[in-house]
């Protein structure tokens, strides 16, 4: 039993990171209808940026974390300005292709500068485990979960109540009508890339603290797909829930397969099996927008 409880807790933590990255994905999808295949690479770049600042430049962790956030804002703006803006008005499939290209470029750049070896973050949190329901949990796990929850709360409030957040939702629904309100569509696009880059890099930094980082970190982006599709592609709450569910499911399935069937590596596929089932049963996901049809 404790074995499974441990798996669930691990799943919650990994899931909260998926949820964060999914948040970035959803924000971009909502605002611009672009499926961003470079989301995982944004995680990776953020993680490496923070790594560079803490390890190579010997800055205190908190400072380098804040600087990473700043760097992500700039990165998001730069990507939007240089890569996405020239594509405005092009067919959406071309834009999606461009994000695939972008993911290759980001990945190659990271490998060019930092190599492909696993890099380890210094321990910033104490090692002493806390006990949750009798199960030992590393403080970094708890911090990861709390930080993700906090970011989610902030963005929920932002989208619900702030003027800019409401404007972003309006833009997602009807760009032309939003433009007629005097909402600057281009700055909304830029803002959504900024948000995506920031939450992804937070996810990357947390992952780095847990597992260390390597150039394969970008594959996390793939795991986020089942999460957002489960949640419904354009729902923040869906992203949160989808991320958590996928995280827990893949850990528990993996553990069960190992223990009961003696099979390893189930972790990699569990999420995608779930994905296929969801698409068959509930194609809009938990909270995906269904078209309002007045009769």
């Amino acid at each position, binding site marked *: 039993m404790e074995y499974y409880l441990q798996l669930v807790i691990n799943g919650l933590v990994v899931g909260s990171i998926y949820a964060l990255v999914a948040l970035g994905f959803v924000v971009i999808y909502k605002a611009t209808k672009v499926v961003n295949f470079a989301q995982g690479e944004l995680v990776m770049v953020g993680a490496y940026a923070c790594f560079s600042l803490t390890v190579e430049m010997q800055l205190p962790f908190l400072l380098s974390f804040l600087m990473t956030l700043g760097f992500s804002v700039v990165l998001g703006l730069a990507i939007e300005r240089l890569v996405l803006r020239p594509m405005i*008005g092009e067919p959406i499939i071309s834009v999606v292709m461009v994000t695939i290209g972008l993911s290759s470029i980001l990945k190659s750049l990271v490998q060019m500068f930092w190599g492909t070896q696993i890099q380890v973050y210094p321990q910033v949190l104490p090692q002493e485990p806390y006990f949750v329901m009798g199960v030992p949990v590393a403080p970094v796990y708890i911090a990861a979960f709390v930080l993700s929850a906090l970011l989610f709360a902030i963005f929920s409030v932002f989208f619900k109540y702030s*003027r800019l957040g*409401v*404007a972003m*939702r*309006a833009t997602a*629904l*009807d*760009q*032309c*009508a*939003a*433009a*007629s*309100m*005097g*909402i*600057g569509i281009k700055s909304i696009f830029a803002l959504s890339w900024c948000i995506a880059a920031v939450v992804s890099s937070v996810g990357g930094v947390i992952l780095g603290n847990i597992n260390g980082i390597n150039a394969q970190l970008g594959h996390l982006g793939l795991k986020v797909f089942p999460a957002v599709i489960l949640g419904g592609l354009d729902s923040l709450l869906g992203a949160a829930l989808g991320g958590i569910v996928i995280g827990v499911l893949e850990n528990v399935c993996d553990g069960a397969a190992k223990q009961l069937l003696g099979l390893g590596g189930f972790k990699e596929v569990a999420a995608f099996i779930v994905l296929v089932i969801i698409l068959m049963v509930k194609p809009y996901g938990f909270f995906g*927008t269904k078209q*309002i049809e*007045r009769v």
Partner: protein
Amino acid sequence: MDMLRVENLEVVYNEVVLVLKGLSLTAAAGQITALLGANGAGKSTTLKAISGLLAGENGKITEGAVLLEDRPVHGLPPDKIVRSGIFQVMEGRRVFEDLTVEENLRCGAFTRPRAELVPSLERVYDYFPRLAERRKQLAGFMSGGEQQMLAIGRAMMARPKLLLLDEPSLGLAPLLVEDIFTIIKRLNANEGVTILLVEQNARAALNIASHGYIMENGRIVLEGEAQAMLQNPDVQEFYLGMSHGGEKKRYRDVKHYRRRKRWLG
């Protein structure tokens, strides 16, 4: 005094299709000006050229000028144009369906200072008590008439000097059309906002307007005082659907395109 002057405007779509062919019109400050015409005459294009929303449809102003209080606004991005005081209520209402009524209204106030928000909301709810009842409801679930009220209310939130209305009567029952036009008239009388009204419903539009224009094929073909236009035999025949003398029309007379041709010059 003219609030809006459009001078010799030419608009091209997709770099090939010439939609407006040297269109000029003015809208007097504090008045309602009606812009009428058949489908495809270029009425909506005219409004979008004024409000800067052409770019989203691959349209471009190739010649001419749009002047708001004698300052050129053509070529500015739409958000700058809204800030300068022009607000367009688009055809088909275009409310944000998955936002609540109040959130829709807040979007209208995007360019205004925060302190104005609450008084602006109260003013809109004053005009449209129905919206106040439904402030928390999703806009997509409202009836067509309520959505049109919301679209107009959203425009009021921006406190424009010049309001462009594109077919506010579209898809509404006759009784509701009357309501909407009464509201437009009231808005103009109480708030002093200048209105440029594009309509298919020529009679309703000319009844509340002080001045009218008729467009065909990307040009103005007729203009005048609204009351005079209502009496104009051509307007009566082509846009108000009246026949003269009460005698039954023969098919030959119905084929009025020969007379229309004269206008196209």
